[in-house]
């Protein structure tokens, strides 16, 4: 038996319709793609339209299990349109676009099936970059629906599904106050600190009685990254034992596609002026302030250098101590201490610390690690 999603956590009744493309789906218990979940409590009704919007939900697995559809059947030429749709979905995602679903077709299961087939194709090709891009694009696609569902149903008291998705998947409880969405301050902080725009700072939000007020758009924006990670995690957990014959060509195409993406950026080996300045100061044996050393460490770590490679750079510093240097570098790299990997400070931060020595080559970047990275087609 080939099980795609193994979790049996879901507890909802599935309403499923006869698929509109007229195929008869024979229930073959011994060759299912999805395992049927056991603990059902009739709490929330999720229709095929919802699954088309949110195909990563556990209920999607149940739906397919009920159809009894097998991998082998999917590779039959009759299902070719689904495979092509799936391939298209990946191509769109890999180019950084969001796959636009035909709203008309949300009522049949080709949306859901193409998502599942896309996962099978991606897993078979086994290219992490493609999976990441796909996860993010799918997260953004679902984000649109989530926002729409929140907004449209906010006064109809019909918010169960979107709110439940947010609560079940990300443990964030969203409530409604008049026309607005509210979440607890700590839940907000844990997510908003990853955004750098000033309007996301807590001081710039409306805060009352332990809650932060948000629009539908902001609520959904807040969980985008987690949604992407959730989808990525789901894909990672899928286990494909063999690739059906009918998928092989598209899997090969994906491998070729990935190659094209891996060399679209040209990375200059030259250091940005702020990093060059730091290295020069150290080479002269002069004192570089802590913030300057932090810049060097985070920058070089982000470029793939190891702690052992970076440590000798600080040898000339007037207060050099081999043990301390190593300890600090390991801490910054996340291999010791809290495990947090520190990121290279932004250009804005460096400017305020008088560590920025921008040249015209720095135009258009907001962080030193972007220096010298240019798209080929520009």
């Amino acid at each position, binding site marked *: 038996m080939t099980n795609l999603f193994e979790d049996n956590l879901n507890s909802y009744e599935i309403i499923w319709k006869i698929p509109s493309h007229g195929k008869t789906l024979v229930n073959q218990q011994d060759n299912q793609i999805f395992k049927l979940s056991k603990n059902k409590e009739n709490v929330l009704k999720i229709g095929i339209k919802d699954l088309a919007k949110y195909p990563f939900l556990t209920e999607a697995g149940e739906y397919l299990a009920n159809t009894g559809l097998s991998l082998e059947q999917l590779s039959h030429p009759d299902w070719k349109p689904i495979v092509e749709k799936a391939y298209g979905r990946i191509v769109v995602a890999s180019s950084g676009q969001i796959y636009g679903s035909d709203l008309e077709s949300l009522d049949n299961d080709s949306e859901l099936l193409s998502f599942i087939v896309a996962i099978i194709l991606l897993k078979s090709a086994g290219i992490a970059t493609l999976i990441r891009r796909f996860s993010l694009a799918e997260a953004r696609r679902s984000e649109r629906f989530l926002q729409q569902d929140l907004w449209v149903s906010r006064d109809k008291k019909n918010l169960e599904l979107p709110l439940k998705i947010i609560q079940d998947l990300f443990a964030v409880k969203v409530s409604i106050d008049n026309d607005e969405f509210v979440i607890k*301050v*700590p839940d907000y902080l*844990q997510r908003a600190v990853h955004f750098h725009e000033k309007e996301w700072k807590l001081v*710039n939000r409306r805060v*009352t009685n332990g809650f932060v007020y948000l629009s539908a758009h902001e609520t959904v924006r807040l969980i985008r990254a987690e949604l992407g990670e959730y989808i990525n995690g789901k894909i990672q957990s899928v286990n494909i034992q063999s690739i059906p014959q009918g998928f092989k060509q598209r899997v090969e195409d994906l491998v070729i596609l990935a190659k094209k993406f891996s060399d679209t950026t040209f990375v200059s080996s030259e250091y940005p002026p702020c990093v060059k300045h730091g290295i020069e100061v150290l080479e002269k044996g002069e004192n570089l302030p802590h913030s300057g050393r932090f810049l060097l460490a985070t920058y070089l770590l982000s470029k793939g250098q190891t702690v052992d490679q970076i440590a000798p750079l600080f040898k000339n510093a007037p207060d050099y101590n081999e043990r301390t240097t190593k300890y600090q570098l390991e801490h910054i790299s996340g291999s010791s201490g809290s495990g947090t990997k520190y990121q290279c400070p932004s250009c804005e931060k460096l400017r305020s610390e008088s560590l920025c020595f921008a040249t015209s080559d720095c135009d258009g970047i907001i962080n030193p690690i972007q220096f010298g990275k240019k798209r080929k087609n520009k």
Partner: protein
Amino acid sequence: MNEKNISLIESAFKEYYFNRFDLIHVPKRATEREFGYQKFNSGMIRHLAIKNDKELHLLLMKEIPSDVYCSNAYYTFPNLPMSEKDWKGADLIFDIDAKDLALPCRKDHTIFKCSSCNSSVIEFQSQCPKCGSTKFETASVMCKNCISESKKEVTKLVDILTSDFDIKKEEIEVYFSGNEGFHIRVTNSDYEPLGSQERADLVDYIMFNGAIPESFGMKRQNNSKSSLPTLEEKGWRGRIAHRLFTSKSKTPKITKEIISSGYTAFQVQLEEIKKTMGVRVDPKVTMDIHRIFRLEGSINSKSGLSKIQCDNLDSFDPFLEACLLGDDNVQILADCPLQIKLKNKKFGPYKNELVSLPKYAAVYMLCKGLGNAI
């Protein structure tokens, strides 16, 4: 610090640690916390596990530390090295220090002590009037104004914590720090898991750092369409409305004025508001999720006063309630150009003179560097 001073101070501390078990307790969830202590003229000893009051009392009597600390963080293994402790969460802590409030009274009670000849002066001078040296150490004592201004900051903080963050009064503990300020500890499980970055944003909220005019309804372009907050609102928007409009009847007129003055003027106004309405806490303390923080009930070696909980902040007098050392007389050579008041008694000023003082006052001067044991 010289040996004679240490032995006088240690004997006073020892007496306190022997006699006042009633005041010194481990905090809640002690087994999950890291403890640490320092002795005079020596480094910090940390990563200790102390399970209960009995173990704590034993350590205090055995080591007579100058300062004792305990983590705000909870760990699975508090006594292992930092990377192996397994951080589980931390209380929210705040430090309000009179030294950080830029109070005008500070210059009247900050003492400059010449590093080479040891003579003390109150006013800042670039050269020592006695020996001409340019190196000084400073010592400061807290005045009534410092206390009341620090208390105002505590009150502002507690107001934001309770009304904006829905933290219950029972979850907030206010302590006199033992020197020149207050420590506030919040135990609320919702806030416990927050990391350093999240706490940094929280502290910016409390300090009113980084507020932009747009958040208060002021538009950069087309600002005639701006809609400022109303008096009924809560959080910072409500606070700002109260500051700007003072009353409902004045609102339309003042709104017009603000909008016609424009975006940049409003931005400047917000900066001004930050200085008076933002709570002046030390952001580094709140952001630090691995800090060991002074233990309540222990003595602060910068003053000889104890860190104790303030049950009634308004009436709290640190020089009376936190001054808990013995009162038998000892002789010291005092060089204190200011008069100080402890336990309702006045001492000094002394100009390098041999005086007999109650132990608590003698230790206070020694800790502040304003006297020497003989």
